[in-house]
């Protein structure tokens, strides 16, 4: 599904990723943990196509194609989804219009017919209900006036509607209370299929208690320093990053 091969990148003169490699197969759930400044969000935005990153070495293949040659929307249409750590507020653009445009843009690229308004409304309501998102919220502008939890649930709603092949969730658990966390985890679990992969970026074990990942990676200094099973998250939670030889008192990069 996703092959990141020895990738290094920088923003301006600052090197953020330093020879990072990662291989995610269809249906696998990978989690990335790491201290602040390790490069976790950079990796997610690099994959999504945000401008401003200069790749100095390596390559990234998504479903066998060179991801770096694709524009942001081409990546989304190919099935890559990024759930933002800080979802953007866009005044004036209603959630409903935006969701419909996005879903239809993706469907069109897959050769599927565009959904009509009624069909779409039904689908949105169904998914929103699972996430305890009120219909009235969807009439508002994108993320405007949403609480932290609502923003994250709206991200998961978009993921559910866009049906991606690979979903990257960048700290989707931050800012959530326990009930919201469980609710979101349940929705993510429902979306797990043998074909769909996930890359979950998190600081804490708590989300991983609900979504059992296949592999956990520890990212530090722009590269993966350790990979393993769920026991790594437990070790991290009890012993901290020092257990992996990472000194979090020293600012990385």
């Amino acid at each position, binding site marked *: 599904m996703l092959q990141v091969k020895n990738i290094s990148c920088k923003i301006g003169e600052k090197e953020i990723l330093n020879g990072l490699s990662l291989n995610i197969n269809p249906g696998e759930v990978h989690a990335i943990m790491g201290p602040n400044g390790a490069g976790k969000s950079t990796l997610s935005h690099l994959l999504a196509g945000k*401008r401003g990153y200069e790749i100095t070495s390596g390559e990234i293949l998504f479903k066998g194609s060179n991801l770096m040659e694709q524009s*942001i929307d081409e990546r989304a249409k190919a099935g890559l989804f990024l759930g933002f750590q800080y979802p953007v507020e866009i*005044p*004036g653009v209603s959630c409903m*219009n*935006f969701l419909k*445009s996005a879903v239809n*843009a993706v469907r069109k690229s897959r050769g599927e017919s565009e959904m009509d308004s009624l069909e779409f409304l039904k689908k949105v309501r169904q998914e929103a209900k699972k996430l305890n998102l009120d219909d009235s919220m969807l009439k508002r*502008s994108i993320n405007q006036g949403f609480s932290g939890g609502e923003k994250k649930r709206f991200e998961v709603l978009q993921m559910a509607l866009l049906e991606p092949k690979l979903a990257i969730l960048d700290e989707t658990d931050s800012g959530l209370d326990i009930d919201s966390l469980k609710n979101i985890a349940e929705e993510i679990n429902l979306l797990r299929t043998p074909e769909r992969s996930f890359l979950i970026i998190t600081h804490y074990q708590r989300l991983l208690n609900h979504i059992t990942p296949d592999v956990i990676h520890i990212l530090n200094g722009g590269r993966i320093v350790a990979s393993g099973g769920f026991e790594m998250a437990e070790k991290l939670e009890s012993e901290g990053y020092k257990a992996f030889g990472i000194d979090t008192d020293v600012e990385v990069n």
Partner: protein
Amino acid sequence: MSAITNNATVEADFFSFWKSTRSNALQNFNNKGFPRKNNEPWKYTSLLGLSGDLLEPAARPEQNTQANSPINNSFFIKVVNGHIVIEDSVLPEEFRISDLEAAHKDESSELVMKSIFENTNNDNFQTHIDINTAYANKILVAHIPKGKCLEKPIEIHYIINPENEQKSSYTQLWILQEADSNITLIERFYGDAAKEKEGTSHAHNHVTRVQLEKSASLNHYRMQEAPEDSYQIYTAHVEMKDESTYNSFTFCKGAMLSRNEVKVNINGTKAHCNQQGVTLGRHKQHHDSYLPVIHNSPDSYSNQNFRQLLDGSSKGVFYGSVLVPKDSIKTEAHQLNHNLLISDTAQAFTRPELDIFTDEVICSHGATVGNLDDDSLYYLQTRGLSEHQAKAIMVESFANELIDGVKNEGIKELMKISLTKWIKGHK
């Protein structure tokens, strides 16, 4: 009591007064020309290019000029090159077409005109109005009786048909709404660009005068889609009495140079003035909105909320000037102007000016000028929208935030269609 009967004791001698006013106006214009940039309300806009033959009144075209379909159920008045095409119009009975001769024969028309003019004439040093006064031969005059509510909107189409002549249209619309009357007025401006001659095809100079008596209400919509090689100079004076309401929405998209000047004199308590508008600029267009409001009475309300979307090398001016004089306590006045610059070469000039000379008021003013937000564009693109689609959705939403509030569904629909066409033109 009618606004007219108040003046009935005064001898109705508007005919000779108007004749001399027109003659003086022409002389004044010939002496002074158009307002210059040292005149503060004209700081950002020059009409110096409007000169010579172009100023001459245009003839009525020989061929029939096709009009756009009016919105369902509207009264419809067709005006081509400044000439009212009565045979194609469906006028409400309250509307008359007055010229000097007609007004002189009909005393009540003369009194109506006299009342409107006296209430809305504060045109000192406004030579762009002088030239109109001098050249506009016929005036559309409406006298809406006390308590009359016209359910159907009145739609006036000002159409430019240049017929290879580079000339000007001069039109005037005078409205007196008696107490408790209520109408919806839609003014639409469009037409053809010059086919053979280069440069400016046409100029349209229009003056609207409105007198709103106690508790009268006017919903006023303007849709300016004039050809992009024309000048559009629009001036309106609105006089508001106690508890009257003036709601306006201006959709400004056409013309090479457009001036939208609306003066509101609030001379009544509990009067309510709400002005909104969306301006779309592209290529080398220049749009100027000058909106002075004077709260002459205490306890009145005004609100200005305008948005400009500027692309290409276009320029957009918002100059809202709200004056709250001494003793106008309990005034509430708000001004807001948001500008979105779509290109690097577009320019916005924004000046929400609020002069307050009393206490006990609620007033606010604000303005923003910005580009399309990169983070928002990125966010939308990560959901599968192309860069063009993402920009279009943001541009459309920026304008629709105001257009969605338009109460008349027919004109709202027209504005939305026009906006979508404008956005598609940017592919």
